[in-house]
């Protein structure tokens, strides 16, 4: 199988300090292969080295050792970059340009003709949910979330085969996040590979086919998300929401059920159990206490556990 991203023994030391330069290892011997046509989640806690890796792949910084290839070409190959897209972390663009002008400028750098530039600009700005009245506003007047949307739009202007998104959801409101999730899904359907860094677990769950988890610059785990979750052996948790009864009134009765915990809520109580079968035992207890059932739902706590396990040493 051929990989579209191949990272080999990649390390990066940053030099810090003014006089006595100290070397800080941000990335430590990373090896990673990504196949095409999927959404690849690049995970890790703050300072794990995600942005460092992506910046090396974009040739914005140079690795201390190691090498990497994208689409079969070495990352130093300038021409290869016409086939990829990139949205930086907390993107910032020329603030004297209007959103439309920025898209047009970048389209021109890719050598697109004016008509196509214009068409892609309108299509993408609409697609990322930027209000049409903001298209002709200077970017200095944009909010963080609006800039993030422009950042995503500009990353797609050349219809890239792979798009690198460094925390694409940061700064977005809930509607924005849903819109961008849909956009990322659509990209995959069209055959675009998405390589995204994030630490938002629900996004990983909703989007990613495969993930790699970094811990302090080292690769801690990589693989299919479902496989990683079952390997980690974390327990499934169910959440039972009830109303019309105080948590205190149920506490005694629940002591008989192994693993059950209860917490008070403004309208009633929230019970967590680890065994599906316990639901049948809980229902009569709730009814006897005068409460009623609102919902029962499984909670994928396993992803959080996996994340915590792999990102903490």
């Amino acid at each position: 199988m051929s990989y579209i991203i191949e990272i080999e023994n990649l390390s990066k030391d940053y030099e810090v300090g003014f006089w006595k330069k100290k070397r800080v290892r941000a990335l430590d011997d990373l090896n990673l292969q990504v196949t095409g046509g999927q959404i690849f989640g690049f995970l890790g806690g703050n300072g794990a080295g995600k942005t460092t890796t992506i910046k090396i792949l974009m040739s914005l910084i140079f690795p201390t050792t190691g090498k990497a290839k994208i689409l079969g070409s070495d990352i130093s190959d300038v021409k290869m970059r016409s086939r990829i897209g990139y949205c930086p972390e907390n993107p910032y663009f020329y603030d004297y340009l209007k959103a439309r002008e920025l898209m047009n400028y970048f389209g021109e750098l890719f050598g697109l003709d004016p008509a196509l530039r214009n068409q892609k600009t309108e299509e993408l700005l609409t697609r990322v949910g930027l209000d049409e009245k903001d298209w002709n506003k200077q970017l200095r007047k944009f909010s963080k979330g609006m800039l993030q949307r422009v950042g995503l739009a500009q990353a797609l202007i050349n219809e890239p085969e792979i798009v690198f998104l460094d925390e694409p959801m940061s700064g977005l409101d809930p509607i924005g996040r849903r819109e961008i999730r849909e956009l990322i899904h659509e990209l995959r359907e069209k055959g675009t590979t998405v390589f995204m860094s994030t630490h938002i677990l629900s996004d990983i769950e909703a989007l990613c086919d495969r993930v790699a988890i970094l811990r302090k610059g080292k690769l801690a785990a990589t693989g299919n998300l479902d496989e990683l979750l079952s390997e980690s052996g974390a327990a499934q948790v169910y959440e039972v929401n009830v109303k019309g009864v105080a948590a205190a009134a149920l506490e005694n009765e629940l002591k008989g059920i192994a693993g059950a915990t209860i917490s008070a809520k403004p309208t009633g109580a929230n019970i967590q159990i680890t065994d599906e079968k316990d639901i049948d035992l809980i229902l009569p207890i709730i009814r006897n206490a005068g409460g009623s059932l609102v919902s029962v739902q499984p909670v994928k706590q396993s992803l959080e556990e996996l994340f915590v396990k792999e990102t903490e040493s």
Partner: protein
Amino acid sequence: MLNFSVISHIFTIARNTFREAVRDRVLYNLVLFVLLITASAIFLGELTAGQEARTIVNLGLSAMLIFGAFISIFVGVSLVSKEIERRTIYAIFSKPIGRGEFIVGKYLGLCLTLAVNVLIMGVGVSLALLYVGGGRLAFSIWGAIFLIFLELTILTAVAILFSSFSSPALSALLTFFIFVIGHFSASLKEFAANLGSSFTRLFFDVLYYVLPNLSLYSFITNAAHGDAPPVKMTGGAALYALCYVGVLLVVTNLIFSRRNFK
């Protein structure tokens, strides 16, 4: 490897740099300049006709050089450093743009800004000369104006070079020193010739060849007397500027290509 896409990248970046300068109100210095020229044209009324025109040329072209040098130095040192600091450069180099293309594009964009600036100032001075009855001077000064522009293109390249490895403030200071010393570089050579010790002589000789010889572009006093620079002088000065700028841009590119953008 100079193909069409390289040229079109450079052109696109240069145009955007020009747009940035205009939107950042760099050309507003023209307002001040026009006020200065108008005021001097009006208040110099006491002098006799010939002197009046001469003073306007001296004042106008000197102001043109100083205003232009200000733009070259301050906009020049921030051309690239501002893009690194604000991280606007991330979205550029993830696209198929070489670092050299970016440097040359930014450089040419500022040169275009300077050309427009110098052109408008030149027209202002010419109009003022026509107003005070110095009709002949209004045309003969354009050779000197072209030399001023050439000098500014060199200064801009110096500013970009410094900013590729030092902070904007230090770069501005160093570029200013070069601007001042560059005007005396011919004296450096004479000075070196009179020195006894061969080592210090070598030192000043090297300095003479490394520093830009900006005295090649000083023609303001002559222009005030109605002289135009000979074609041979202008051609030589243009060739010198081309070579000097070329070398500086190559060196800038070498330094810049190795930079990590943090």
